[in-house]
């Protein structure tokens, strides 16, 4: 499964060919994805077969993942269903250490013979690679958990909801957008269920059932006269939840400044489609921003991506160490800065933490993909850099006694490696509402929802846009702006953080498709925050004429 494939899929209808979908697994009928997978007792037998075969071949450590990965895509535009696709991918991956070196092999032949063969192949590869190995792998200790399980705490399994109901919801939302002035709407629902079984020579047998849901649309309005168009994306978030996310409960709606309605733990797609069309029209005639320094009030639906790029990624230990140098890049947050224990990542208001246990988040699981129980830990405390994200073979480098539990593989045939945990900005400790925060700004911009994003390979310089921008004058919203992007430097930006609203405003948003590694893998991750104020940030005007 590759991010590029998803981008292709999002733009494809039924007239497009089948192949991009098959990178997610075999395309199957909707009933197939409801069938139970392999029995846990059978998985344990197979896992033991793999572990024994690996040990017999000379492995000093082995883990095996037996995974069934299910996806459902529902793709619509305006009044048409363009495609409904279900995919299933089932197989096993065995990872071993032999001669102090990692080896990995995978197969879709999940039989005793097939899995033993993969285990032996992994040991062969480890031994071959050990010839060029310079530092033997050292694993941080992990508890032996025995036979345990975890299930995303969903209320409604989205795969069990009849496809007709889902299609009706999407088409209903599309109709509302069109009634309210949209020229076009592309509306997609994407469901994920990872049924994964993990076992290792450390004595853990972990069965997990992980669910994720993402409804997402883009509304387009066109002014033919001027030859311009504007788009507004949905204010939904990808979530680690079931279909209950689409209940759109009144208590989960937030009346935000600028007459904007935002959503917390459930989402009203039909209502949002109406607002999207209206707001996209307003954007056509909004005032073009005057470039300069502004105090920014960044809404959680926007700030999550800035956190993701400028905190989540630079604090991944494999990047810091240089393993990603040829692709995603390295990090400005080097070990020498961390070792000083005085590196000011941000102002005193800034507390950033990693957490793989937050209910409803995309990264929440019971155990990571190397059998480590998930937890919460601090990354930046009162502005000071205090920790990174590390897995078992990295923990010793930063003096940690145990892994942080953030190892992940996006499929049974991918090798697990360090991936970003949910990384979030802690809400402010003192009572502060969004209205109060905006009330204190003389010249500023309130930015809602993520838009354009770009950051350098060491995570210093970034530029972000959003979906909606409101000018703040003397503590009051003074109308909509357009053509806004802000540019800053990570350390400067987080040190300009003056206020963070309290926990009443704390919400999660996130990414379904965070890409990393070569060959590329994707990962889903959430980021929480409350609305936060950043002083004196450089805003540019992005209008051009061609």
């Amino acid at each position, binding site marked *: 499964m590759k991010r590029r494939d998803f981008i292709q899929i999002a733009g494809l*209808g039924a007239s497009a060919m*089948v192949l991009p979908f098959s990178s997610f697994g075999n395309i199957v*009928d909707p009933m197939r994805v409801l069938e139970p997978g392999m029995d846990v007792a059978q998985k344990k037998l197979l896992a033991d077969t793999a572990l024994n075969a690996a040990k017999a071949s000379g492995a000093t450590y082995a883990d095996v993942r037996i995974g069934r990965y299910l996806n459902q895509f529902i793709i619509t535009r305006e009044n048409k269903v363009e495609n409904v696709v279900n995919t299933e991918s089932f197989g096993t991956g065995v990872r071993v250490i032999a001669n102090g070196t990692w080896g990995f092999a995978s197969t879709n032949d999940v039989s005793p013979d097939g899995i033993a063969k993969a285990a032996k192949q992994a040991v062969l590869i480890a031994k071959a690679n050990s010839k060029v190995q310079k530092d033997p792998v050292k694993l941080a200790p992990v508890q032996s958990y025995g036979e345990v399980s975890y299930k995303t705490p969903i209320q409604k399994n989205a795969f069990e909801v009849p496809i007709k109901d889902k299609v009706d919801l999407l088409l209903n939302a599309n109709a509302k957008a069109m009634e309210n002035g949209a020229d076009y709407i592309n509306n997609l629902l994407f469901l994920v269920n990872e049924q994964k079984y993990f076992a290792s020579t450390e004595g853990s047998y972990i069965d997990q059932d992980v669910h994720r849901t993402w409804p997402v649309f883009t509304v387009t309005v066109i002014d033919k006269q001027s*030859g311009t168009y504007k788009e507004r994306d949905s204010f939904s978030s990808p979530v680690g939840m079931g279909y209950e996310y689409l209940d759109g409960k009144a208590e989960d709606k937030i009346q935000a400044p600028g007459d904007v309605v935002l959503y917390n733990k459930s989402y009203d797609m039909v209502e949002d489609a109406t607002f999207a069309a209206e707001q996209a029209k307003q954007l056509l005639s909004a005032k073009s921003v005057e470039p300069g320094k502004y105090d920014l009030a960044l809404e959680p639906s926007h700030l999550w991506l800035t956190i993701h790029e400028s905190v989540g990624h630079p604090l991944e230990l494999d990047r810091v160490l240089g393993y990603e140098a040829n692709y995603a890049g390295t990090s400005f947050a080097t070990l020498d800065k961390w070792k000083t224990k005085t590196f000011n990542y941000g102002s005193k208001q800034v507390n950033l933490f990693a957490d793989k246990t937050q209910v409803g988040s995309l990264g929440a699981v019971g155990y990571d993909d190397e059998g480590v129980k998930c937890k919460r830990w601090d990354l930046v405390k009162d502005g000071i850099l205090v920790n990174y994200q590390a897995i078992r073979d990295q923990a010793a480098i930063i003096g940690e006694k145990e892994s942080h539990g953030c190892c992940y593989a996006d499929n049974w045939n991918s090798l697990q490696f360090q991936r970003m945990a949910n990384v979030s900005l802690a809400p402010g400790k003192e009572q502060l509402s969004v209205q109060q925060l905006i009330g204190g700004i003389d010249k500023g911009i309130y930015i809602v929802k993520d838009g*354009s994003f770009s950051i*350098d390979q*060491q995570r*210093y*310089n970034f530029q972000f846009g959003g979906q909606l921008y409101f000018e703040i004058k003397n503590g009051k919203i003074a109308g909509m702006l357009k053509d806004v992007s802000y540019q800053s430097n990570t350390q400067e930006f987080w040190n300009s953080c003056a206020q963070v609203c309290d926990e009443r405003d704390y919400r999660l948003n996130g990414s379904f498709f965070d890409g990393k590694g070569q060959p590329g893998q994707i990962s889903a991750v959430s980021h929480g925050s409350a609305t936060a104020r950043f002083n004196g940030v450089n805003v540019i005007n992005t209008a*051009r004429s061609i």
Partner: protein
Amino acid sequence: MAILSKEEAKQILEKVISFSKADGLVANLNGNNSGNIRYARNTVSTAGENSDVTLGVQAYYGKKSGVATVNEFDTASLEKVVRRAEELAKLAPENPEFMEPLPQQEYGESKTYAEATAKITPDYRAQAAANSINPAAAKDVTAAGFLEDNNSFAAMMNTKGLFAYNKATNVDFTVTMRSNDGTGSGWVTRDYNDVSKLNTAEASQIAIDKALGSRNAKAIEPGKYTVILEPAASAELLGNMFFSMGARQADEGRSFLSKKGGGTKLGEKLVDERINIYADPFNTEAPAAPWTGDGQARKKLDIIKNGVVSNLFYDRYWASQKNVAPVPFPGNVIFEGGTASVEDMIKDTKKGILVTRFWYIRSVDPQTQLYTGLTRDSTFFIENGKIKHPIKNFRFNESPVIMLNNLEALGKQVRTGGNLIPYMKIRDFTFTSLSDAV
């Protein structure tokens, strides 16, 4: 099993087609053998191989279609996947945009396969990595690189009598070289259908030289500068623009090629008249598959001729709505260049910046094709015809449309990502801020 010959693929597909009970059926059979090696910190980190064959079947009744895929090829499995696609088709809602499959087409002779690439072994990959790591380690430089090779085939058949087959090989190599003092970084990319053209030692030396030559870069003020863009720098920006040249988006009014008051810019001058860009699947340096995933024949196709937009891409449905011939999305892009080498172009530059590559390019405004991103892995200041010193990286905000209007000169073409792209000298390229990243 992964790579089937034309005859083997045909046999399987004929069997699949024979099971059809629907109004019609399209079957696509694809297989791939791939291998890779990844290294970092001057040592190999991971290596692997993957092999897969997938059969995709699309059955249709009228305008209702269903798709199923399988990777087992016994007779029972083939029949089962056809039945499943047919059941899904019956359940599917009617799609007004569904197009019936094409009858047999005429395809040109493919140039995408090279035997040497199909024969790459794990030993070859390990040696290719060693040839990159060893010279780096000898120069106080750290290498991180990735080599990936693919040997694949694609075949399709339908109930209208169409059969198509192609096999292709490809090898991609990238390496980042960083000086051990952390102040210099160089990068190089190579891709070929034929691995015998790849020399990872030669390519790595360029990245090593850049890493050492870019140490202790100086900051200069952001602003508008004349730039010499290496082909790898401009390829992604241009690719984004080509990807946005769909006729439907332009007709719908949501494209940079939509016009005020309606209509499109097809046939209008968009960029400097010295610019000629076309697709040619039969180019020997950068070939593409001679047919598309839905069986349309790819031919040589002008995209921009003398600065004028000469084609937009029409899928079959949109072409039928507009009563024009479909124009499939190209498999490659050939951007005509000149004869000047990069050294010649530097000599002719009074004041400018040489850019190795851009990184993290993202759309800022699709309407104007405005993109942002940063320079990365060696950026140099040019003064009076000479490289003066390395400079710190810049963030840019620029549109390829504006860029191609500000053309100063075109240099030699280089294959990049399966396309041929020239060195380009562009005036008034917009850099908006400085980055401390190395």
